[in-house]
């Protein structure tokens, strides 16, 4: 094994670091926490302007495949929210895999320019983990499709120009066989959005589809082939498009603060921080492996599940430890005097719980590993 980055990849990394230092300022991060929208157009634009989004896009990137990992790893570590970039690049990867020429020509360039965001409309009020059971209907009407239903947790729908919408097109066949994915403009008449607030400050949405009429050019992949499209999308989402290095900024914020208070001299604090640091290194290595596979044209369906379970559960342990070690100061929000690590300890403790839920819960990912890797019978 060889762990040195190529010179090209090193350059790519320093370029990203430079841009994030320039545009990912404390004010930008603060605004994200205030608004709950963890996306900043100026960051996306700056990365796009240097061609960095294009270089890392799965299936399109012309750089070293490890650049996909580098991009998201640097974003993760920086503390700048990048939900918009991850979903947009994921969508670009999916469109590139299964999309029509028209979709590739119209949507991908606007994504890679940093101007356009995509949201993911899979989950519904009554169907989350069992996403293949969704009931939002798309019915053919002449040359058009008519879509009716409701989605839940449609993050960034209030900012996005496009949505990947999972619908049921054939209710009379087994659930996985009657699904179709659409790629719709968010301004299509009949779509409405309501905000949903969360414990971790993040704003997400409930979205509603009322007699939404679109042409067949909006079908992404095959009609009734939506489950295959989902497979591609989930393989990119888990462990590849970031979210596996949250423990890094937590340790950074915590140890600088703990040095100031003297806490960093305590053996129990040192031992725990070392254990968190070990998990961070392991999460990074597992992520590199998954991202490498995705960027080289494969689908890391299994590796992504593995790193997602590991990294998010390690992050939760780390966030809980840091909050405990900080004591009452670990309860205080940003901008409160005396807040541990300027409020990051409290923030990470509020944010960590969602990481084992969205993008496929730990249980769903363990089912995946049990069935696909260990060859165990389906438990459901």
């Amino acid at each position, binding site marked *: *094994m060889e762990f040195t980055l190529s010179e090209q990849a090193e350059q790519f990394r320093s370029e990203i670091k430079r841009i994030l230092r320039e545009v990912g300022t404390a004010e930008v991060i603060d605004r994200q926490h205030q608004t709950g929208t963890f996306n900043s157009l100026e960051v996306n634009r700056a990365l796009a302007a240097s061609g960095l989004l294009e270089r890392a896009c799965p299936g399109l990137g012309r750089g070293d495949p490890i650049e996909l990992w580098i991009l998201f790893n640097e974003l993760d570590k920086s503390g700048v929210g990048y939900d918009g970039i991850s979903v947009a690049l994921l969508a670009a990867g999916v469109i590139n895999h299964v999309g029509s020429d028209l979709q590739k020509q119209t949507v991908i360039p606007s994504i890679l320019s940093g101007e356009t965001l995509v949201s993911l409309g899979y989950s519904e009020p009554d169907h989350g983990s069992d996403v293949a059971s969704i009931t939002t209907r798309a019915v053919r009407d002449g040359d058009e499709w008519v879509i009716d239903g409701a989605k839940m947790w449609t993050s960034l729908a209030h900012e996005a120009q496009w949505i990947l919408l999972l619908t049921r097109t054939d209710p009379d066949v087994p659930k996985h066989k009657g699904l179709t994915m659409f790629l719709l403009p968010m301004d299509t008449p009949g779509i409405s959005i309501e905000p949903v607030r969360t414990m971790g400050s993040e704003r997400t949405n409930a979205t509603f589809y009322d007699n939404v009429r679109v042409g067949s050019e909006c079908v992404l992949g095959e009609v009734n082939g939506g489950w295959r499209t989902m497979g591609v999308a989930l393989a990119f989402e888990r462990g590849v498009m970031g979210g596996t290095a949250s423990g890094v900024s937590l340790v950074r914020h915590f140890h600088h603060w703990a040095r100031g208070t003297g806490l*960093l001299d305590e053996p129990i604090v040192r031992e725990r921080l070392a254990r968190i640091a070990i998990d961070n290194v392991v999460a990074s290595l597992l992520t590199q492996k998954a991202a490498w596979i995705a960027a080289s044209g494969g689908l890391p369906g299994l590796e992504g599940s593995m790193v997602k379970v590991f990294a998010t559960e390690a992050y939760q342990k780390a966030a809980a430890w840091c909050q405990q070690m900080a004591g009452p100061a670990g309860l205080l929000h940003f901008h409160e005097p005396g807040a541990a690590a300027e409020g990051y300890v409290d923030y990470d403790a509020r944010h960590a719980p969602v990481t084992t839920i969205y993008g496929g819960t730990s249980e769903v990912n363990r089912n995946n590993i049990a069935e696909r890797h260990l060859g165990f019978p389906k438990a459901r």
Partner: protein
Amino acid sequence: MDLSLSDDQRAIRDVFADFFTKESPVSIARAAEPLGFDDVLWTRLLETGAAGMAVPEDHGGAAATLSELIVVAEELGRAIAPVPLIEHLVASRLHPEPDIVAGQGIATVALRPADADGVWRLVPGGAVADVVVGVDGNDLIAVRSDPPGRAPRNHACAPLADRPARAGRSGRSSAEVERTVIGPASALAPALDEWRTLTAAALVGIADAALAIGVDYVKVRKQFGVPIASFQAVQHAMADLPILIEGARLLTHKAAWAGDRARAGLRGTIDIDDNEIDDYPTLAGMAIVFAGQAAAHATDRSLHFHGGYGYAQEYDIQLYYRRARGWALVLGDPSTECLGVAERLFGPATAPATGR
């Protein structure tokens, strides 16, 4: 960046996977208890050239890199082979005398300095090694003396023993103890990191074997009319294991890679703020902690899902369970290892601990 095995690593793995599968099925480890050493297996192993693998060519060795040696160590762990090869590889680099390079003499390394009485306590491989390399006072020394040939009965059935660092200790006359100063005490540190890295690799092998045994068992064992592998509680606990094992394997490989770079004179970086850590001692400490945890957990879950049979001597999983702990703990408490890692990541503690 390439996270797959190199061609050389693959070739070495194939040779040793084959060797241990043929020559050291688990019945060999079982039969070697309680001493934990099989001299026939050791003799066979010499035919592969393993004994001199770590030694530079000018001393008659094969000059294998640490990245290559860990591949051997993982296969050794998978077979829980009753031979102190890891200790021998580490000691042979420090003291490449001809009989050691050839493997006629077995060498080992004392992981902690000799105590005030001049005795190295519970040296791994100490029950059978002809030469012990270790620290006594300010010196790193090699001591040749007759091995006791027996070990105190212990958890892992490992060939541990107390060994004299000086003449007249443990009831030996000076004629029986031949002592050579190799260097300053500080020269042991890189060797200990080699031991950590190689042992981490062996623990990955143990964990992987335990997973395979557990997976096979739960697919066959039926309760309530179905294989127990169909119960989600069983599935989920087992699903964690390949994650820990793959993580430990990658970390061990990274430590070995850093070790080879350090030997070539390259210094690694430690940037905790950026999670950029390629410093060898830091990674070696991380690897033994994480691989130790992975092996302890994998053997624990695998044993547990055997039900009562897992606890029975007749079943093999208990052999792996005990070695997963014993092979790692000869070094000491993993929490102490973590404090060593913290020292490199954050610098020394600046004030005395309050004992909170």
